[in-house]
């Protein structure tokens, strides 16, 4: 029980980080980035590659992988997503990002084969004791990393000028453009940030789970559930729903059976949406298409 709770909060914060990237992208651009799952896996494989071939530590490697993923995000946004326009934009964005995800999945399968891998370090399997519960170091360090990055992101969003322009674009794009914000530039950088966080999320995910390219399906279904539950485009929603959902999943797994724990995720989603179609923190009941 206690173990499930602690584990849920620690893992949940990593999901919250990845979901924040996703909700930021949706909020600013109305793009549903289905490729977020494969970007997480790509980030994990980047860390794996750096460690395997250059012996770079997982956490130190983030100094390389985070900027790399940021650039990948900007390139993807400029090449493909910036071209989407019109009333079917959001529906099209799902398909475009899905196609991108298929291409990356194919490349990863060829480059790294379909065998499962896991990121290992000297400290991955060591653990320490709190309240009589053994917690592996890597979970705790992942949690710290997620907290640091989330605080950084929130500081940027709420305490800087650029953050203000992002929040303005989140609230109302045309109004933001009217007061002189370069929405195009904000969109591009937001997409970059949204993808960059997957490098950190992917590293922690890869250190705590065995993965291959097709693990991305499982990831993206969870991340999408989290941001819908939190309210699409809501930053606080992604944070709360991310931690709450993973904790709930672990609790169900501990009390009932791990087999049905994923199910709890989707049952909660369906129940919440039946009463609050806009999600927990969603503000608009219906965004105009």
């Amino acid at each position, binding site marked *: 029980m206690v173990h499930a709770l602690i584990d849920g909060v620690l893992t949940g914060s990593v999901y919250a980080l990845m979901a924040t990237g996703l909700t930021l992208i*949706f909020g600013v651009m*109305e793009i*549903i980035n289905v490729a977020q799952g494969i970007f997480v896996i790509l980030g994990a494989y980047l860390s794996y590659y750096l460690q395997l071939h250059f012996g770079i530590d997982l956490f130190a490697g983030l100094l390389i992988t985070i900027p790399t993923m940021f650039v990948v995000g900007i390139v993807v946004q400029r090449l*493909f997503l910036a*071209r*989407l326009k*019109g009333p*079917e934009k*959001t*529906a*099209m964005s*799902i*398909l*475009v990002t*899905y*196609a*991108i*995800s*298929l*291409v990356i*999945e*194919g*490349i990863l*399968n*060829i480059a790294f084969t379909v065998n499962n891998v896991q990121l290992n370090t000297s400290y991955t399997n060591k653990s320490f004791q709190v309240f009589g519960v053994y917690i592996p170091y890597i979970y705790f360090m992942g949690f710290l990393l997620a907290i640091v990055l989330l605080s950084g992101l929130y500081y940027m969003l709420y305490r800087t000028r650029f953050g203000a322009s992002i929040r303005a674009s989140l609230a109302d794009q045309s109004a933001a453009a009217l007061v002189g914000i370069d929405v195009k530039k904000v969109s591009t950088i937001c997409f970059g940030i949204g993808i960059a966080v997957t490098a950190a999320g992917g590293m922690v995910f890869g250190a705590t789970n065995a993965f291959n390219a097709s693990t991305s*399906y499982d990831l993206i*279904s969870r991340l*999408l*559930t989290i*941001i*819908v539950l939190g309210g*699409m485009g809501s930053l606080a929603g992604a944070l709360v729903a991310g931690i709450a959902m993973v904790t709930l999943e672990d609790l169900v797994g501990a009390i009932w059976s791990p*087999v*049905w724990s*994923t*199910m709890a*995720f*989707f*049952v909660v*989603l*369906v129940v919440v*949406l*039946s009463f609050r*179609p*806009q*999600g927990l923190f969603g503000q608009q009941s*219906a*965004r105009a*298409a």
Partner: protein
Amino acid sequence: MSTTSTSIFSRPANWIWALCGVLALTFPFYETDPAYQQIGVYTLIFVACATSWNMFSGYSGYVNLGAAVSYGTGAYTLSIIAVHTHPNNLPGSASEFWLIPLAGLAAMVVAVPIGLIALRVRRHTFVVITIAIFFTFQLIAINASFTGGTGGLSLPYIPWAASYFDVPFYYLALAMSIFAIILSALVRRSRFGLQLLAIRDDEDRAMGLGVEVGKVKLTGYVMSAFTIGMAGGLFALLQGQIYPQFVFDPLFDISIALMCFFGGFGTLVGPVLGAAVLESSQQYLTVQYSNGSLYLILFGGLFLFVILFMPQGIVVFIRQKAKQRSDQQIAAAAAAGSNA
């Protein structure tokens, strides 16, 4: 789309339909290799599913990424009944085929509560909920006891010679595709179809004009589940063995959507063309090279190309080009006339 033609064969499009129909009907006679006949069956299964999917999602704009829920429900309904009753013992061989419409009905029944929940929200959220519901179904199929779990279910053996094994399946799939196309065409020309299109264009305005949006969306959603469920049942019979990850397959969901967008989202011909091109090429590449990863790259790349350069799909792209050309010809003729 102009529909004012006086004779059926006065428009070139109808000639193309007729030609495709003849080619499809005679396919097992000129292609006798079972491997390629099977490609034909799979292609037609996807033609039926994509057309049926488009009848709801394409017309209403509500992109359903959980079509495999209907497909899997159909496949499992048929398999469970077949396993428990062994209808092969009944008079007449292969009487399981009579279970196919039942598979479709089961998919419709399951679609009602799903539709009631998922259609409460607007488009973007709807997409995500359909994905979530899909994964719930996959999870049930993997873990419940009545579905046989990960081991799947084996259907009673169909005693046909290998040389013509696929032919009855082929014609059933063809019949299903024709049914789906005719139904989709009828819906498109009906008042109900116009209501779906109105929802796609502007749901609030449609509601203001008196369209009962909730009822119309639910009806469309449930209707589209029927053919997809039947196709799932046919797939189960063809395979003789089903596994949760193959009938509740996320790639199925997305393939259907890709086929429709590739051919032309919300058009009648688009899904048929998209399914015919993409599914047959996928099956062909699998038979030839058996390299799934390469296929993913090609498929994804091709799709990116189409969506970025012909965002409304191939059918609409060709129509626009044709219209541009005829407009230019008219303009040129007018210019020549005024000069003379």
